[in-house]
Each structure stands twice: as structure tokens, then as C-alpha cells.
């Protein structure tokens, strides 16, 4: 391996003066299509983990813009992802919600979630939290990289990577304040302020959000008789973030707190659990300091020091056991602190225009709880004492990666790379990738082979009776992506892929003992097809996804539907009035367990319609009325928690008013 690297480097240096200048993939035509604002927002270097034009990235990429978030009134991250190809969900309407990309169900630990480039997956389980804690008004764009990306990002980047880029100002003062009220006791207040001072080259942004919602009516029969008529279900989310940029230095901090009832985690009818007075209280604190250096646009260097903290706070009441004739019941308290410090050094070097080399070294030290520290009260009605601090485990990670983008001919590039991770937990993992990217002005084709892995975390090692022998589950993926722009404003694209996960972490149930084991396999064959059309006043999108996920024996993977489709249209009736209509079709799928209310494991397909109408710029105010589940469809998501299914929200109506502070 060492020899290979050395040869590569020698090769790079020897050839650097031989090749003539090649054009950047950004074409004059691309620039001429840009507005003045677009130009002002375009960087002079293609520097993400590596910033590149989407068509040049060796992966399928979808982007949700701030304008789309605003026009469609997306309230949660899942709502935004739900209109894209490839996504399916297990929404438990509770302390978490689960996002499946490309046919792989998980506890959100097969997708990596980043905010401004920093991972925010929960540290102990490796899964990110869905739900309401993201301040949608402060998002500039969401980039979704489909398929494995472990070569750049390491563990958890298996089904894909979601990168949320928050707003910042590149020019002058900007900011707004919003207020939202809706059905199911939904309410929200948010603000963001941002400024860039050209003379001092200082930019800053501050944003905050408080959001409450009961999400749906799940009482009694409305909740498929999983919970009583007195059940309690709430989620309160708080978010505060700030960013500062001074010349080459930037720093950011984001604090999120989610307080939610745990009612929907367990069934209360015909079960021992009480469905009120629980509290899941988890806080996330993520921060970074980054130094960026560019030399002659040939070399750029980026060093990022980051801190991550995901703590289940000690006042958490995970569940309450009901009193019986012979017992007084009890409340169960949970506490789980975790934190991590890491340093990521990345160098991008363009020795000549045909070649871009990206290299990086990462070191991380994390302190993770051995498991939940648990405390019990002696009565259903008495809160538990604060749990003691659990034993902490130290984990060290050292990784390096190298990726080469080499332009074979003007329109054809080769991308190859490897990443090597060395963990004190899960040992060493080598992750290679290779791909070809073909680009003309109108046509793009990408053929990719990627590998990825998901390392077990303490949550996996210690779950149930525990299993110290767990090893990372690994994915191999082949993908062909093509897109074609028929007209300047009309484009189509398709991805055809085959994924194979071996050593899949599977729950092994033996009597009352449970533990995770590396046992099963998961194969997925999928097709995603999309089209976009836009004019000045009209934009239309449509996509269809075929997903065939199965085990080796040909048994279909539960929770995954074979057919999903989404479509939407946004029309500007005037400079002030905009309307949006969105439709989602989710085909039938299997529940992991028999559903008591139906006697089988089938979950029916559903067609949903959502809409929003906005009046913008009325003396600085934007007003939006939004309806989700317009036809009030009764539909369900699967449950891997108990024998049952999860009723999804009924029709909901929200009114949002936004004021532009610097109009």
C-alpha cells in the first residue's frame, strides 16, 4: 500500500508540467444562464467535503433549495426529503422518526447527517435524530448524496449523506422572523440574522427556533388502538446556532434540544406501559473552528477542529410501568452523556488541470457511555431519581483518505479513492471507490463502484445481552446515473443501482434474550427516475422509485415499498402570489410483525396531497397557508417496536407569517 501511494505521488509530481491547461467544467454557457445574484454566490474555486459542480460529483446528488423549503412550507427535514426519489419512512410520531434511503431500513444509522459539514449523528448509536429540531427557515440548501460515501466520510455513510447548509450572508444585512400556528397544537417561532461586512471581511449569522407540536391525534381508535384516549404526545424543539467568518477563519456552533413524550415508543393498550408523563430529553451541541487556505487556486487546505456532544439528559423518563393490583409500578429514568473531539485536515491539490487530488487525515477521540445509566422509582406516580453517571468508554479513531479526479479526455473523468479507518473499537476498515463521469453540456453519465461500512457502536455492542464480537456491516454498490437536459429548463435523470450489504447487523431474539449479531444480508436493486421543468412562473417536478430489497433467500425486506412516486407544481400567479401542490404515492409494504387490528402484516399504499399558498412581500410580510394530507387519508407506517402499526397524521393546517427585517 505504501508503495502504491508513493508511486502515485511521484507520478503526480512528474507529470504536473506535462499536461496542458484544461477547461474547468464550469462553462461559459453555464455562467451566461446565471443571474447577477447567482454569479455573486458562485465560488471561484471548486473546492463539500469537496466543493464541485453537481454534474462532476461521482454520485447521484439531489438538492433542496431555500426557495423550495419556503414555497412548499416544509416544517421538518423528513417532509423535505419525502418529495425526493429513494426515500421511505418509519414515522413513529414520537421522540424520533426513521429515514430509509434506497431500501435499507435502519435506526437512521445508515445515513450520515451533516450540518455545515459537521456530522450530527448521535454518538452512542450512530443514528441521527429525525423530527422537528431543525430550523428549516435557516437552511440555505440540503444536499443529498445518494449511495455509499464512506471513502470520504467513513462510518454510517452507507445509504447516503445528507448535508444541511445553513444560511449565511455574502453581502450585506439579511434576516427575518417567523411565526407559525397550526392544528395539533403546532406552533413555531424562529429568527435569523446575518451580515457580511466587506471592509472588515467579517460575516456572522445567528438563528434560533422554538417549535411545539402534538403532530397527530393518536388517541384510542384514531391511533389504531395502540394507546388510550388519555394518551399524551408532544414534542418541543429548541435550536440556537451561530456562525462567524473572519477572512480565512470560520467558526460555528449549533445547539439543539428535543423534549418529547415517549408514549409512542411502546404500546399502552394490552401492555404494561403508561402513556403519559414520560419525557425524552436529548441535547446536541456541535461546533467547529475551521481554517481555509488557498494558494494560487492550485492548492487549498482546510483544517477543521470539531466538537460533538449528544447527551440524553438525566431528567429523561424513558417509560412508566403501570401499577397493578400487586405492584405499585415504577418510572424509569435514563441518562447517557457522550462527546467527541476531532480534527480533519484536508488538502486539495490541482497539479495540473486534468488532475485533482484530495487527501485528508482525521483524528478523533470520543468518550461514549457504556450504555444508558438507568434509575427506577418505586411508584408509577413518583419520578425516578437522577441516574448516576455511566461508565465511559474511550474510543480513538485515525483515518486517512485519498481521492483522485483525473480527466481522461475533455468530457470523461475517472474518480478513484480509498479511505483507511483505524478504530480502537472496530479495528481497521479499508474502503475503496472508483467511477467514471462523462459530461457534455446536456448529457451526464456516471458509472460508480462504491463501498461503505457502518461500524457497530456501544449501543450495538451492549444492546440486550450484548455481543462483543460484532464487526462493521459493509456495503458494495454499483450504480449508473444518467441525466439529460432536453431544453435549458427541462431535464430528466435516472439512477440504476444494485447494493449488497453483508454482515448485516440483525437483532437475534432467543426467548427473552436479545442481541445484535452479524448475520443477514440485504440486497437492493433499484431504479430512480426524475424530471424537472421550470419557467419564470412555473416549476414542476416528478419522480418515481422502484426498490426491490430482499434477503438472500428472496424474502422481501419489511418496511420497504417497491413503488413510490412524487410530483409537485409551483406556480406564481403574480410577483406576490404563489401556490404549490405536492403529491406523494407510497405503495404497500410489509410490517415486520403481525398487526393485531388486521391480523396480517400488510400496510396499504396511500396517495397523499399537500398544498400551500403564499402571499409574499406585503409590506415586508410573507404569509403562507399550508395544508398537509388534504384528503385526510387514513394511513400507517410500519412498526419495529411492538406488534402494531403507526397511524400517520390526519389533515393538518398551518399558517405562517414571516417578516423581512431588512427589506
Amino acid at each position, binding site marked *: 500500500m505504501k508503495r502504491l501511494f508513493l508511486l502515485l505521488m*511521484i507520478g503526480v509530481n512528474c507529470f504536473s508540467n506535462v499536461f496542458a491547461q484544461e477547461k474547468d467544467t*464550469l462553462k461559459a454557457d453555464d*455562467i451566461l444562464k446565471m443571474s447577477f445574484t447567482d454569479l455573486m454566490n458562485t465560488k471561484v474555486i471548486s473546492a463539500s467535503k469537496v466543493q464541485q459542480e453537481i454534474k462532476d460529483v461521482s454520485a447521484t446528488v439531489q438538492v433542496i433549495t431555500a426557495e423550495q423549503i419556503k414555497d412548499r412550507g416544509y416544517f421538518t427535514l423528513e417532509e423535505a426529503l419525502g418529495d425526493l426519489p429513494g426515500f421511505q419512512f418509519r414515522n413513529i410520531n414520537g421522540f424520533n422518526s426513521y429515514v430509509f434511503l434506497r431500501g435499507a431500513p435502519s435506526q437512521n444509522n445508515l445515513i450520515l447527517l451533516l450540518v455545515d459539514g459537521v456530522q450530527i449523528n448521535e454518538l452512542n448509536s450512530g443514528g441521527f435524530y429525525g423530527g422537528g429540531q431543525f430550523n428549516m427557515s435557516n437552511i440555505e440548501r440540503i444536499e443529498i448524496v445518494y449511495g455509499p460515501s464512506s471513502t470520504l466520510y467513513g462510518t454510517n455513510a452507507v445509504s447516503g449523506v445528507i448535508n444541511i447548509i445553513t444560511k449565511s450572508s455574502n453581502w450585506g444585512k439579511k434576516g427575518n422572523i417567523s411565526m407559525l400556528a397550526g392544528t395539533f397544537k403546532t406552533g413555531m417561532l424562529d429568527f435569523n440574522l446575518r451580515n457580511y461586512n466587506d471592509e472588515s471581511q467579517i460575516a456572522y449569522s445567528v438563528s434560533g427556533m422554538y417549535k411545539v407540536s402534538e403532530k397527530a391525534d393518536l388517541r384510542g381508535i384514531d391511533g389504531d388502538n395502540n394507546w388510550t384516549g388519555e394518551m399524551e404526545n408532544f414534542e418541543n424543539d429548541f435550536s440556537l446556532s451561530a456562525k462567524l467568518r473572519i477572512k480565512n477563519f470560520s467558526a460555528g456552533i449549533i445547539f439543539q434540544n428535543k423534549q418529547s413524550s415517549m408514549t409512542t415508543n411502546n404500546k399502552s393498550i394490552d401492555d404494561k406501559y403508561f402513556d403519559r408523563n414520560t419525557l425524552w430529553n436529548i441535547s446536541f451541541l456541535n461546533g467547529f473552528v475551521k481554517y481555509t487556505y488557498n494558494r494560487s*487556486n492550485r492548492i487549498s487546505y482546510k483544517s477543521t477542529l470539531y466538537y460533538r456532544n449528544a447527551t440524553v439528559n438525566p431528567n429523561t423518563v424513558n417509560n412508566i410501568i403501570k401499577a397493578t393490583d400487586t405492584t405499585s409500578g415504577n418510572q424509569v429514568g435514563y441518562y447517557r452523556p457522550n462527546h467527541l473531539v476531532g480534527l480533519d485536515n484536508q488538502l486539495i491539490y490541482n497539479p495540473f*488541470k486534468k488532475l485533482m487530488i484530495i487527501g485528508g487525515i482525521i483524528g478523533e477521540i470520543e468518550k461514549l457511555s457504556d450504555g444508558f445509566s438507568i434509575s427506577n422509582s418505586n411508584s408509577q406516580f413518583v419520578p425516578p431519581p437522577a441516574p448516576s453517571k455511566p461508565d465511559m468508554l474511550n474510543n480513538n479513531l485515525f483515518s486517512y483518505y485519498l481521492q483522485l479526479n483525473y480527466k481522461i479526455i475533455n468530457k470523461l473523468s475517472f474518480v478513484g479513492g480509498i479511505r483507511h479507518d483505524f478504530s480502537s473499537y472496530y479495528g481497521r476498515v479499508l474502503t475503496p471507490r472508483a467511477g467514471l463521469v462523462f459530461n457534455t453540456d446536456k448529457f451526464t453519465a456516471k458509472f460508480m463502484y462504491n463501498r461503505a461500512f457502518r461500524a457497530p457502536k456501544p449501543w450495538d455492542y451492549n444492546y440486550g445481552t450484548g455481543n462483543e464480537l460484532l464487526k462493521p456491516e459493509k456495503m458494495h454498490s454499483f450504480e449508473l446515473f444518467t441525466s439529460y437536459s432536453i431544453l435549458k429548463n427541462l431535464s430528466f435523470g435516472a439512477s440504476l443501482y444494485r447494493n449488497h450489504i453483508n454482515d448485516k447487523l440483525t437483532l437475534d431474539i432467543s426467548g427473552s434474550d436479545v442481541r445484535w449479531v452479524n448475520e443477514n444480508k440485504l440486497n437492493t436493486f433499484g431504479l430512480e427516475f426524475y424530471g424537472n421543468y421550470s419557467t419564470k412562473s412555473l416549476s414542476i417536478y416528478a419522480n418515481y422509485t422502484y426498490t426491490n430489497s430482499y434477503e438472500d433467500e428472496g424474502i422481501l425486506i419489511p418496511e420497504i415499498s417497491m413503488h413510490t412516486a412524487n410530483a409537485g407544481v409551483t406556480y406564481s400567479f403574480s410577483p406576490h402570489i404563489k401556490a404549490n401542490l405536492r403529491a406523494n404515492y407510497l405503495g404497500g409494504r410489509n410490517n415486520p410483525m403481525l398487526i393485531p387490528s388486521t391480523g396480517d402484516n400488510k400496510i396499504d399504499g396511500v396517495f397523499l396531497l399537500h398544498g400551500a399558498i403564499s402571499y409574499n412581500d406585503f409590506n415586508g410580510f410573507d404569509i403562507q397557508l399550508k395544508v398537509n394530507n388534504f384528503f385526510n387519508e387514513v394511513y400507517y407506517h410500519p412498526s419495529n417496536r411492538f406488534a402494531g402499526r403507526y397511524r400517520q397524521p390526519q389533515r393538518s393546517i398551518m399558517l405562517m407569517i414571516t417578516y423581512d427585517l431588512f427589506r
Partner: protein
Amino acid sequence: MAKSSLHIGKHIALLIILFSGLIIPCRGEAQTRELLLKAGYIEKFTHFVDWSKNPFSKDSLFKVAVIGDKKFSLALEQIFSNIKVNEKSVKVTYITSVDQIKDNMILVISKSIGSDKLDEILDYTTGKTILTISEKDGYGVRGSIINLVVVDEFIRYEINRVTLGKSGLKMNSLLIKSGTLVGTK
């Protein structure tokens, strides 16, 4: 849990070797992307500037000259190849001396032009209806009407209101608002 012994030292050594190869500085051609973006800006500027007082404004071609770096003229040629300004085709010329400026509506002064040469160029252009566009820190204050600068990887521009006032060019207030005003009045 599987514990592995980390041979981190070896790998760090390997990466130091690797990176020492990467950071050998190389003579570089100016980045095409940056020049193309700057050329894109110049195309946008033409929508916001009025050259009607220029004595050559009735010519059949809209002429743009570049002095300093020939690659800038190549970038401009790409941008303007199918674009008309005031319904005229655009001719981009690479020039090497001040006396070649004459009938051009825009003069692009590349960053390779030193300050002595800049003074010579500005002595010629100041007071004439020629839009001078430079791309080097400080050149806006020195007298170029527009100076393109890279700020935190984004292109921004300065406008020297004194030189603009002397030129007789009319500039749309939208363009002025989006730039940084430099020079004293």
C-alpha cells in the same frame, strides 16, 4: 469488542511523505474558472452601463480590450462569442500598449499589470468614456472604474465614483448599489 493495535506512527509517516509531495509549489496558470466568472461579471456589467457619449458608440462592433494577461481575453471571447451588446457583436482584442486602447468601450486591466503601468493606462483613460475594469487589490482606489476582487472565494467589485464621474459613463444605480464604493468625492 474487537480491539486493534494501531500502527498510527507508520501511517502518519506515510502521509507526511504523501503530503510533502503535494505541497511542492508549482508555477501556475491563472485559474480558468475565476477568469470565466470575472468575464461573466463583465457581461452583466454591459447591461447596466450607458456608453452613448463615447465617440465610437456608433461603430458596428462593441469593442473590448484586454491588457496584461491573454488568458483573460480568451475567457471574454468564450463569454461574448454569441452575445451582443446594444445589438452589436462584441470584438475582444488583446493589446500590449496604451496607444492600442483607442476605440474600445471596455478596457480590462489584468492583475499582471504593475502599478507603474496602471498609472500610465489610467492617465490615458481617465476622462474618457471607457469602462476600465481591473482585478487587483488596491486598483479600485487607484482609479480603475471597476475593480474585481476575490473575497472569501467569491467575486465582488469596487466602483471608483471619482473616476466614474469623470468618465461621462452612466451607470445604473442597481449596479452601484451592489458594489463597494471607493475613492473620495
